């Protein structure tokens, strides 16, 4: 299809060239200029990515270079964050972020996949018309509202069952993140389930498999790559989420979480909590936190792009 279009396009060009006896210089130049402007607009994304990486890394790596530098090892393995005394350790934040993300994936991915299965394979049409907008709304709810929901509902609930005096905890963060990644997982999984050819289902049913067996043994395996990219995207969402998490994490100044009832301080909330008033090295250290977060996100992004490109090649 794509190739065909190109061939026809080219033909159209040659036809035109023949018709046009005298080349119209001005028009050609205008066309060229316009095309260049279009190209520049397209390059804006490239420039933005480069600028973001350059500036964040430049500012974030400053404290580890030159005289009077802070030890990068102490930064990455430290378990205490005390800007007042020039102590900047983010290991416990990395652990917090990773735990929270893993937790959200453990709950969010299965629930999301099963919901997608219901929408794509089981639900009657009328019901789909109610559930789909609900999920769209879930996807559109701003993260501060999830935060308010966390503060008003989840944190008090956790507080009731928690041995700790406060409800702000890893568990609360996991609960809210699970809900927040659900729409992403559901939408992508549903799309990939729908892309599975009908013949797969017919073949499976024809061999005597039940509807449920067909779903779990024929359809879902065929939708594997879509589900995988949904999961990776979910990881990216969870690790990068800031506002909702900041409101319910507790954000302690140190300590690796040892239970789900412990407070955590994700990388994202470390940045957004203190950026407003930080200056000098403190501010640079927040950028350094951003660099670490960025590296996590880059790994997620590139994995995702690899998966989608692979799926596209098939």
């Amino acid at each position, binding site marked *: 299809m794509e190739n065909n279009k190109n061939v026809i396009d080219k033909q159209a060009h040659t036809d035109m060239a023949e018709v046009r006896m005298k080349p119209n210089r001005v028009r050609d130049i205008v066309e060229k200029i316009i095309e260049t402007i279009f190209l520049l607009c397209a390059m804006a994304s490239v420039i933005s990515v480069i600028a973001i990486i350059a500036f964040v890394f430049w500012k974030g790596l400053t404290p580890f270079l030159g005289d009077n530098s802070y030890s990068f090892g102490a930064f990455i393995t430290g378990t205490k964050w005390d800007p007042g005394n020039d102590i900047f350790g983010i290991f416990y934040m990395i652990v917090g972020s990773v735990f929270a993300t893993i937790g959200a994936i453990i709950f969010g991915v299965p629930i999301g996949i099963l919901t997608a299965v219901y929408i794509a394979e089981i639900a009657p049409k009328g019901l789909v018309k109610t559930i789909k907008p609900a999920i769209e709304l879930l996807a559109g709810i701003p993260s501060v509202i999830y935060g308010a929901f966390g503060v008003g509902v989840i944190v008090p609930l956790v507080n009731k069952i928690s041995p700790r005096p406060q409800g702000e905890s890893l568990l609360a963060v996991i609960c809210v993140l699970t809900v927040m990644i659900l729409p992403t997982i559901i939408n992508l999984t549903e799309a990939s389930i729908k892309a599975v050819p009908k013949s797969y289902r017919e073949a499976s049913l024809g061999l005597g498999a039940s509807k449920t067996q067909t779903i779990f043994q024929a359809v879902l395996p065929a939708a594997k790559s879509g589900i995988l990219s949904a999961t990776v995207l979910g990881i990216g969402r969870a690790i990068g989420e800031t506002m909702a998490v900041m409101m319910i994490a507790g954000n302690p100044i140190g300590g690796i979480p040892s239970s789900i009832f412990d407070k955590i301080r994700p990388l994202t909330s470390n940045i957004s909590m203190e*950026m407003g008033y930080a200056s000098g090295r403190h501010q640079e250290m927040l950028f350094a936190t951003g660099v670490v977060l960025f590296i996590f996100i880059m790994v997620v992004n590139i994995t995702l792009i690899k998966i989608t490109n692979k799926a596209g090649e098939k």
Partner: protein
Amino acid sequence: MDSRKMKDGILQGLIYFSTAFTVLVLVVILGFVLYKGLPGINLNFLTRMWDSKTTFVKVVKEESVDNNTKDGYISSLGITIDLDEKNKVYITEIESESPVKEAVNLKNDSYPIKKGDIITKADTTIFENITIEEAATALENGNETMKLKVVRPGGGIIPMLVSTIYIILLSLLISAPIGILAAIYLNEYAKAGRLLNIIRFAIQNLAGIPSIIYGLFGMLVFVQMLQMQYSILAGALTLSIILLPTIISTTEEALKAIPATYRQSSLGLGATKLQTNYKVVLPNALPGILVAIILSIGRIVGESAALLLTAGTVAQIPTAFTGNEAAAATLTTKLYWLIKESGDLSGASSIAIVLLVLIIVLNIISKTITKHFLAKQGNK
């Protein structure tokens, strides 16, 4: 056979449970927000400024002819006053010919007094622990040119609404043209190759960067290095980068849906590529572009982390692009600020309701356009 039935049953149960969970969560969130926030939603909340404002005004009294003896009615000013629940004197009604509408502040700028304004001082009488009768007498018997201390009560979301709209307009003004032209380039001009791969890779990456990183970048470059301070321009510039992937990919989808024959016919008739793009491709992609813009508005309305670091949390109507007068809290940043700084969950929920209504309306609009668009294409 039995074990298969059982397995099927369990799996089906899990499927139903998961779907019910997803829907239930939404119901709980909406229920919570409505329960907490609905009592706080009223006309004042939607129409007032956030901070209350105290102003001294001068009012020239008029000769009264009307001998209305209603409680709290002041004929020389043409207003009716009453006590609110905190025993403050406030204006319940203003006559159409009332001189308080011509009131001026101390700089002689017009500052018309409005319904709901609180009077805390008239000439030398301070209105504290005062009865209506005493207040009415003080107002009626005051000087010919009366000096009033007027407090316009706050508690409304107007500054945040206006700031949000400003930021929407500014960011779209920057990113919509760039995004649309970029999409046209990618779909109509670009040839497969390294450059195209790089651009696509960059767009995919942009889409995955969390907004806090954009916030860091915006703060460093726009707020600090370009010295815009916390301002709507710094916020809008940051947001316009965030919006690029959405606008580009949605527009591209619309472009891809246009049949190749349209372009071929146009080119075949002797139109240049630019003319084809401008007169054939773009008009046909318009609904898709509209959807891209509405999706972007939704994204801006919901954005908070990046704006927290670039636009600040001052509840004011911005009167400049950069600098102190341009600092602006949007609905989302104010919501966050309310919970974090003052623990006011009810106020935050009221703002959340406004946000949700906006998001739902935007969802419906984009759905309608898409539906209409698809129906139209199907007919052709």
